[in-house]
């Protein structure tokens, strides 16, 4: 018997029930991330190849990009990775309350990143007149960063599902309550990154706050109601099923989240920073 089994502790890095010593779920996630490396490798290569030999009439990246905003987004995504690592650390210690806070923080930071991307795309199309189809640079840029943004959005959804799952009661299934809770969380996150964060960035760049509130009044009101519902449904009194035994599930979502972070590390350097040389 291993020392962990003897002391009743859960070994979070090794699974003695599988032949590889690795939990099957974790192995699956690593295999998926390895394949996703190749996917993003192809997209980044395509972008760089067209930057090597830009056709006439191509957009000039340095006139389009807003490096301050992108740097801020990069910082936010790195900090979301920290919160995700802390969420995994918390659940491995059986601290559910801390896990919930860290998962919410990770989702919040993810929404700020996505909101920055929504603002960036809207700004590029409306002001810089760079669309998906009017230049090769636009095509490869939107495809690459849009695919990454989709990965982040899926990550936020997975985190939301994991967050709601932490409230599943020990007795009774609570399925409908959890479903409503998930809908509320999704509504809050959706409103945050589609309307709230891009609107606040516009306010930072000089648009009056009243104009932003007037422009997005309905979605913001829906988001506020969903936020209240999230808090109300998040008030739990009984025992929950979720615990240290689910650390592997949180870690699996964490692997995905960190992966989108490392992909952005490459995109930030290859797509944004190298253009300024």
């Amino acid at each position, binding site marked *: 018997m291993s020392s962990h089994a003897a002391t009743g502790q859960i070994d979070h890095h090794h699974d003695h029930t599988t032949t590889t010593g690795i939990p099957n779920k974790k192995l699956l996630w690593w295999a998926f991330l390895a394949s996703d490396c190749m996917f993003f490798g192809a997209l980044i290569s395509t972008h760089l190849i067209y930057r090597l030999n830009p056709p006439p009439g191509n957009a000039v990246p340095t006139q389009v990009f807003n490096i301050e905003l992108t740097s801020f987004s990069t910082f936010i995504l790195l900090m979301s990775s920290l919160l995700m690592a802390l969420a995994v650390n918390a659940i491995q210690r059986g601290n559910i309350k801390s896990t919930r806070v860290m998962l919410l923080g990770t989702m919040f930071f993810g929404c700020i990143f996505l909101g920055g991307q929504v603002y960036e795309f809207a700004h590029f199309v409306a002001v810089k007149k760079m669309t998906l189809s009017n230049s090769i640079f636009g095509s490869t840029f939107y495809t690459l960063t849009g695919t990454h943004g989709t990965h982040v959005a899926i990550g936020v959804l997975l985190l939301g599902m994991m967050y709601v799952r932490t409230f599943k009661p020990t007795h009774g299934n609570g399925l409908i309550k959890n479903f409503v809770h998930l809908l509320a969380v999704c509504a809050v996150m959706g409103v945050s990154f589609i309307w709230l964060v891009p609107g606040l960035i516009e306010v930072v760049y000089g648009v009056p706050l009243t104009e932003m509130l007037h422009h997005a009044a309905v979605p913001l009101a829906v988001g506020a109601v969903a936020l209240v519902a999230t808090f109300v449904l998040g008030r739990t009194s009984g025992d929950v099923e979720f615990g240290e035994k689910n650390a592997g599930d949180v870690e699996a979502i964490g*692997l995905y989240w960190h992966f989108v972070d*490392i992909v952005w590390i490459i995109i930030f350097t290859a797509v944004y920073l190298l253009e300024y040389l």
Partner: protein
Amino acid sequence: MSAPAAHSAEAGHQEPSKFHVFIQIAMVLAVITGIEVVLVYLPLAKWLVVSTLCILSAVKFMFVIFIFMHLKWDKLLCTILFFIGLVLAGGTMWALLHLFGAEASKPLSSIVGLISL
């Protein structure tokens, strides 16, 4: 918190905390990002800036996968599995960039010299 979870929490506290390690790594990553942004505006040789940016990105990449993604503490098979994908992706990128970067691959319509990565 449920009773089994509370018991596990007590057991878990006997493990060394990674909390401070994660905080320190996050601060290092933030500082490296700041250095990268400043670096592109410095009047240095282009090859030096590009090399430094690549190295700094690789350092950030390694910190995240080995510390945040726990590869440092996991079985070696996880590292091998991920690096198979990474090496294939990197090799494909290297091959494509050299293939399309060759003189004979340049399209006649391209603006030569406008940008060279």
